[in-house]
């Protein structure tokens, strides 16, 4: 499941999103505040094990801060270091905040005169392109245990074949008329965490009825290790029954096992999570269907990631 989602991330995101090849994570300094005079300071990175800053910094240019009253906040003191980016958020309004990133895009492949082309431009160097046409061998490589995306710009021996940089178009509008075998996937993803100042509020959890959504039954800043938590997942406003969700605790390198829980939502789209210990957790779900909003795409890939803090009772 990890490998699978990694593969999705590689195939779908490498072209359209800021460096999200590894698992992308936000790590807030705290999630529960007793007043509105404080800030939360946040690390943001991408790595295999969540919260371990050992691979790449996350591009935080598009971080969004949804304040409880519906207004948008602004990140402060942003910085990008080698393995993580950092920013502060002034939590100056009472209630529950959502802070994170939303990514949408269309990527995929097509052929012109038998030559493979891809859609979508990867922001930032170096260009590492993967096409869904080539993802089958890539899947074999990943499944056989080769570390996925072991290094930035994995283009060395054994890596997926690179596509000719001249065979990349920026958007679907640039696909030439004589293109064949057009295979486009719409991607929608969200990665976020929650902060509550004072009493929590659920104003920001009204479903929009579009894409994969997380609707808490247990408020995400109310998590305690001796109480099971429940979250509902929706796709286009309908319960996402049977959705696979991974829950991974932080602190991977202090354990033998990665501690991943692979869970599935029930018929109402509700996920029940038991927490083996207090700490920060990384929750991730992805689902692909054939209902893209853009008629040119054939598939829709939706992802949801959250960082959750679980306190000791």
């Amino acid at each position, binding site marked *: 499941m990890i490998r699978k989602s990694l593969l999705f991330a590689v195939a779908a995101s490498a072209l359209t999103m800021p460096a999200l090849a590894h698992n992308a994570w936000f790590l807030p300094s705290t999630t*529960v*505040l*007793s*007043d509105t*005079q*404080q800030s939360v300071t946040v690390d943001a990175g991408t790595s295999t094990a969540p919260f371990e800053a050992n691979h790449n910094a996350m591009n935080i240019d598009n971080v969004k801060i949804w304040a409880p009253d519906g207004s948008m906040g602004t990140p402060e003191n942003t910085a990008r270091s080698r393995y993580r980016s950092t920013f502060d958020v002034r939590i100056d309004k009472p209630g529950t905040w959502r802070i994170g990133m939303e990514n949408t895009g269309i990527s995929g492949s097509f052929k012109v005169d038998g030559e493979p082309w891809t859609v979508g431009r990867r922001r930032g160097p170096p260009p590492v392109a993967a096409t869904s046409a080539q993802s089958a061998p890539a899947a074999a490589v990943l499944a056989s245990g080769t570390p996925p995306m072991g290094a930035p710009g994995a283009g060395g021996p054994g890596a997926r074949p690179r596509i000719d940089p001249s065979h990349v178009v920026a958007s679907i509008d640039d696909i030439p008329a004589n293109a064949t075998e057009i295979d486009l996937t719409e991607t929608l993803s969200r990665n976020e965490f929650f902060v*509550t100042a*004072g*009493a*929590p509020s659920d104003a920001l959890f009204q479903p929009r009825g579009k894409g994969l959504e997380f609707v808490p039954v247990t408020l995400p800043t*109310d998590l*305690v290790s001796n109480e099971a938590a429940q979250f509902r997942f929706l796709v286009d406003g309908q319960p996402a029954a049977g959705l696979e969700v991974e829950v991974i605790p932080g602190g991977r390198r202090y354990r033998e096992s990665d501690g991943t829980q692979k869970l599935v939502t029930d018929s109402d789209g509700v996920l029940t999570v038991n927490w083996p210990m207090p700490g920060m957790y990384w929750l991730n779900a992805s689902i692909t269907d054939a209902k893209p909003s853009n008629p040119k795409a054939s598939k829709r890939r939706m992802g949801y990631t959250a960082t959750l803090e679980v*306190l*000791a*009772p």
Partner: protein
Amino acid sequence: MKKTIAIAVSMAATPAMAGSVTVTIPRIKVAEYHVPYVAVWIEPKAGGPARTLAVWYDVAKRGNEPGTKWLADLRTWWRKGGRSLNLPADGVSGATRAPGAHRIAIPANVKPGSYTLFVEAAREDGGRELVSMPLDIPTRAAAKASGKTELGAITLSAR
């Protein structure tokens, strides 16, 4: 506003109370000792909202890091209801207490029934502890519980 304060005070001071809780803050020998934040609350056994009987914190500290900043460190109390309390709260909140035994009256308007009493303490540069015990209102017999680290004896009394 003045009027409500007066009413609250007179209610808290009324002699017809439903018993009392005595919380002991132990003396802890460490180089840097700070008196703990303490919250005392009750929850109906059958379920229902928590009612805070007392919360002791650094009421006087103002400025960039006011005393209220660390209230969330009483993390169970905070989640069970502390966060929706307007502080300072008359008859409920007060300054931190020194080591020793402190008596808290259970207000007379607590409805008869079965409750759980919780006492939580969190100390700067120290630990945190939560102690709970059953509590019947009206309180008939004396009962006792004890913390191990941050809290000492906790006793219930009919008066």
